[in-house]
């Protein structure tokens, strides 16, 4: 598997295939071995527990999934007491903890508390969840705030500091640059697009909250365009996601400039997506006698 080594800032990964926050948990590892994964990114944790959004929370459209989970999670304390020990016991790949907050102070509080724990290789700052009004989203759209956030948090940790960006913005490159200037060590993108579906018979929204987050194969062209734009704008490594189902999809993102990719909705479509993407990449590179470094960012227009 040597061939598929990659790195994400300070993190060395044994595989460019990782999993997107909120779409993968230890249960998935009942289906395949974790060595196919470069890292494990857990569901977003907030300072206090969040009950999440009212159901229905899911709707599958023609080409993807609309969700409205609303960052349901047990909160930082329960994460540390219950979840983290279980993750540490189970994992032998790097664990990245996804966190979100409603203020820079709250982010800082979470990171400082997590710094006291062992078994964490990095943080993913979720400033981009479209299902949380006036919280994550408010951060993700303002370059100045993202800059401040990273500048505040970077000194607290030596670990990988990933900022996860929203596609629902006018200029994602400006935000990526702000994250870079602020001291983030890599960029994750994209979180979900705004999405909605309505029952044509009754006029009722298929998602209780109305607008939800849209993911899956239908967003791939958008995710790829934004990956390409961000790769041109910053030097930071990128972990790309958005509609990656197959190893061919994964290659597109690597060519566009991603150092690693994450599978989100694909995990629901096929619980074996990760090993399949891994195997496909491995065969492709072997056949073409290429290494990942010959692909990453080498796209031609």
């Amino acid at each position, binding site marked *: 598997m040597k061939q598929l080594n990659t790195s994400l800032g300070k993190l060395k990964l044994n595989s460019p295939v990782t999993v997107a926050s*909120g*779409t*993968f*948990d230890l*249960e*998935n590892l*009942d*289906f395949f071995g974790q060595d196919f994964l470069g890292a494990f990114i857990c*569901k977003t944790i907030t300072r206090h527990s969040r*009950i*999440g959004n*009212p*159901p*229905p*929370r*899911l*709707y*599958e459209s*023609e*080409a993807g*999934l609309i*969700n409205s*989970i609303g960052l*349901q999670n047990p909160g930082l304390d329960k994460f540390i007491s219950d979840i983290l020990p279980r993750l540490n016991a189970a994992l032998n790949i790097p664990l990245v903890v996804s966190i979100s907050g409603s203020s820079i102070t709250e982010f800082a509080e979470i990171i400082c508390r997590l710094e006291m724990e062992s078994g964490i290789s990095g943080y993913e700052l979720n400033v981009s969840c479209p299902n949380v009004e006036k919280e994550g989203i408010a951060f993700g759209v303002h370059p100045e705030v993202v800059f401040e956030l990273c500048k505040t948090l970077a000194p607290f940790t030596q670990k990988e500091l990933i900022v996860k960006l929203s596609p629902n913005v006018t200029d994602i490159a400006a935000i990526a640059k702000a994250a870079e200037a602020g001291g983030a060590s890599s960029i994750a993108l994209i979180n979900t697009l705004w999405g909605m579906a309505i029952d044509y018979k009754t006029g009722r929204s298929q998602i209780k909250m109305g607008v939800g987050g849209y993911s899956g*194969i239908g967003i791939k062209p958008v995710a790829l365009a934004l990956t390409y734009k961000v790769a041109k704008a910053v030097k930071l490594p990128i972990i790309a996601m958005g509609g990656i*189902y*197959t190893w*061919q*999809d994964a290659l597109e993102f690597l060519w566009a400039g991603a150092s690693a990719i994450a599978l989100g*909705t*694909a*995990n*629901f*479509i*096929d*619980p*074996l*997506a990760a090993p*399949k993407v891994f195997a496909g990449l491995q065969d492709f590179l072997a056949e073409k006698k290429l290494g990942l470094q010959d692909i990453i960012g080498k796209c031609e227009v």
Partner: protein
Amino acid sequence: MKQNIPVRLDRRIYSREELCGEYFILWIWDDNLSRKCHPGQFFEIRAHASLLDAFDARSLPKLYKPISIYDNADGRIGFFIKKVGAGTSALAKLKAGDKLELIGPLGNGFNPVSNKRVLLLSGGIGYPPLWYLQKELINHNKIFWLHGGANQDDVFPCDEVWTMDGSFGKKGMVTEGLAPLILEKKINLVYSCGPIPMLKQAAKITRELGIRHYTSLEAYMACGIGVCHGCAVPIRTDTKEDIEAGTSIPQWDYLRVCKEGPVFNAEDVMWSML
């Protein structure tokens, strides 16, 4: 309420049965898998699809669909399915010998009981999980099964049938027959599965009569294995005393139908929020 580690498998369809209306049954045969199943559990199933279909762009692979275990005997597991939309239509096209993708068994399932006077209450596609339950309970309990459907295409073997249009059995909502039957048959336990409005009404009745009632809920699912929190339903977890007001406030949480459910104590379901 045992939880086994679910498996992901491809299995050939061993046989296929046609029923009235939009209903059909797919059988698979797997002795090992069969031994792991309990009444009330379900599988996530799908007509065989490949991720690579998305690349070929012929058809996009879609989510698995949650389907209850309808029957489980002699190594054969049956899925009793109603064609309602895209996912179940794809299943409806499968023939014996075709490949089925499976994840399961999933969910908590019903608690086995004995020496009880049990009423089973099903509505429409709520029927299948109760069939398997009934088979497990029949030797140790007295069972009465009440089933309701829209019309004669939605009714299946049981003790008493109601249809909305009166085309089979009694005419009306099946829950109209519930209270009298509970009293008449001296029922001390109800298991139910069906559409939310029916379950809500049934829960009100059993609550008023003080009868224990376990209900199997439905929800739209993405992962089926407890990962995505998409299948959440509001369930009472505790009560907190409000000293000042002298009342107790229900504490509740969104629990996962696929993991903590699909079977819940009807008392605990926050019906007003559904």
